[in-house]
């Protein structure tokens, strides 16, 4: 944003950022109208429903804090997609990486119960990132040696990971009372929460990662090299860049970030490892990254918007008796409207 402040702009409307904002606002209003129509058709009062969504999210400090809580994992999983996209890799495997990361972190939480918090939390973070990276290594490596497309393998692995978690919970980790979840984590294994709300340290993780992503892409040699690989891998290879190495390492870092999202969810949000706890967070991150065009600021904004929709949808279920899943329709319509923009593209696809 500093660059925009330094240069003189002829008019506000010609500012690219302002125009983008206006376009997004228009699209969001269109999506709201369409979803309102669907609500109307299903016998609900759309205006009242929107009022409910608004008061549930912006109407109180607690509601707003819940939006932030929902935003934390989405922000991180979106970053797990954004980084690999810079070298032209499509990481749809966030869902699986998240589960494996959560499983690794849970193992530490259940095994080293006596460690103090300052020892246990970093250990869990480290293990979660290793777990996610390992899960991403498989598609990354297979892609780098030219064997199988990373999209296909990631999708297959997405389906395997929750079953591994299920196997671990069901077979070894479940609590005495309940076979679908582990015992509650000890306090030392929980990320600290702030301000008496459920906002936890994961938010800081997410924001630091976001800033690091921005800085690396903008100011380091790695960022430049990654962009050139994403732009034209052949040319990058001819210029002597270790393309294969980059593909594998960047995919693994993406996986590590997604694994961290899993750790943040089990340690910060749930405090326990649940069967199928993710609820498509990995896929959601993928979509948020697309909506944001892979840009750091856009990711922050879009994960916030999606969280508002979801937190509001939670309340609609309670007060209006609308199934929670219905809120997916609003989300999908909003996404469709954005995707249908002809200029919209994440990696500026080129025909190779």
């Amino acid at each position, binding site marked *: 944003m500093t660059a925009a402040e330094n240069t003189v702009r002829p008019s506000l409307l010609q500012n690219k950022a302002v125009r983008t904002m206006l376009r997004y606002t228009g699209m969001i209003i269109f999506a709201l109208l369409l979803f309102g129509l669907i609500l109307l058709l299903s016998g609900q009062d759309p205006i009242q429903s929107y009022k409910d969504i608004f008061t549930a999210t912006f109407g109180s400090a607690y509601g707003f804090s819940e939006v932030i809580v929902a935003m934390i994992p989405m922000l991180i999983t979106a970053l797990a997609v954004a980084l690999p996209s810079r070298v032209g890799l499509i990481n749809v495997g966030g869902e699986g990486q998240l589960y494996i990361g959560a499983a690794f972190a849970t193992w530490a939480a259940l095994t080293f119960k006596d460690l103090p918090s300052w020892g246990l939390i970093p250990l869990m973070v480290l293990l979660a990132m290793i777990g996610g990276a390992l899960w991403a290594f498989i598609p990354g490596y297979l892609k780098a040696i030219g064997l199988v497309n990373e999209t296909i393998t990631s999708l297959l692995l997405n*389906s395997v990971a929750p079953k591994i978690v*299920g196997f671990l919970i069901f077979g070894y980790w479940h609590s005495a009372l309940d076979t679908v979840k582990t015992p509650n984590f000890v306090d030392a294994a929980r990320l600290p929460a702030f301000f008496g709300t459920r906002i936890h340290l994961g938010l800081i993780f997410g924001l630091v990662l976001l800033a690091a992503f921005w800085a690396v892409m903008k100011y380091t040699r790695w960022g430049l090299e990654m962009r050139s690989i994403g732009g034209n891998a052949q040319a990058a290879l001819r210029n002597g860049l270790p393309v294969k190495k980059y593909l594998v390492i960047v995919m693994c870092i993406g996986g590590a970030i997604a694994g961290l999202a899993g750790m943040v969810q089990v340690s910060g949000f749930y405090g326990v490892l649940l069967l199928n706890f993710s609820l498509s967070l990995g896929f959601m991150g993928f979509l948020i990254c697309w909506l944001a065009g892979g840009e750091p600021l856009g990711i922050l904004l879009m994960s916030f918007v999606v969280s508002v929709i979801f937190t509001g949808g939670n309340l609609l279920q309670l007060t209006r008796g609308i199934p929670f899943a219905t809120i*997916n329709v609003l989300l*999908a319509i909003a996404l*469709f409207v954005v995707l*249908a923009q*002809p200029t*919209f593209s994440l990696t500026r696809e080129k025909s190779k």
Partner: protein
Amino acid sequence: MTLLAILGVLSSAIFSGTSLLYATLGEIVDERAGIVNLGLEGVLLVGASTGFAVTSVTGNPYLGVLIAVLAGGLMNLILAYLVVTRKANQLASGLTLMFLGIGLSALIGKGFTGTRITGLPRFLLPGLSELPKVYTSLFKFDFLIFLVIPMAILIWWVLFRTRWGLSLRAVGENADTAYASGRNPFLIRYQALFIGGLLAGLGAAHLSIAFTMNWGEYMTGGRGFIAIALVIFSKWHPIRAIVGALLFSGAVAFQLLLQAAGVQISPFLLDMIPYIVTLIVLLIWGGTRRQSAPASLGRVYQGTE
């Protein structure tokens, strides 16, 4: 273990595999035209919920099947508009379609959770009427099961033995070349997605109207993604898809048999089998057989300005 138990397991494997094969065939048609439909899960959910709702309201399961099939086709047309006309990214559009399907089906099925319906009528396999009644009840199948293998053969015939199938595959391989040889890639992709959606709708109808005969939110439980895996496993070929569906049904049956035999093995591990096998098969083929995937799968066709 008795013969009866084994036959019972086989029978339930056939029921659970049928919807999967229809969905896989639909995805094969989509992908042969160059479109990856990651929203298959959502398409199945909308088909299953509308089909169930219509059957429940009208009491006519055949009408339910018809509506489910149309719903599947319409869902895929949404995707077609996005990825063909608006040239949007296929993966993101597909995932969005999945979220739309999850939401819409929850809304449609809201009033029908826990409702019972009379499902599709079942007929006995010909030539088995001599068997004792305990056995015959296991071999009563609805018409969608009888139709599924002929349908796979029909799709094979259409794709590989008709002019339209050739055009469709040509568009999937290279849309520019197909255009240069006088075909309309936009139109063909629309047609392919619509037909793929109809097939997915058939699978969805079988799932909710013939197999489970009830509706629950997210009842497909990942079937869409299994079907997408099976497409790869079957190398985009309708006949091999039968083998893929058999493999999956076999894994389900094997799992049930083990449980019946009292073998202690986690169902979660057995659930992984289809995915792991697909992954291994992919690796064994390696680079050499990759041409079996449509060459321009996932690419946006820009058209000529």
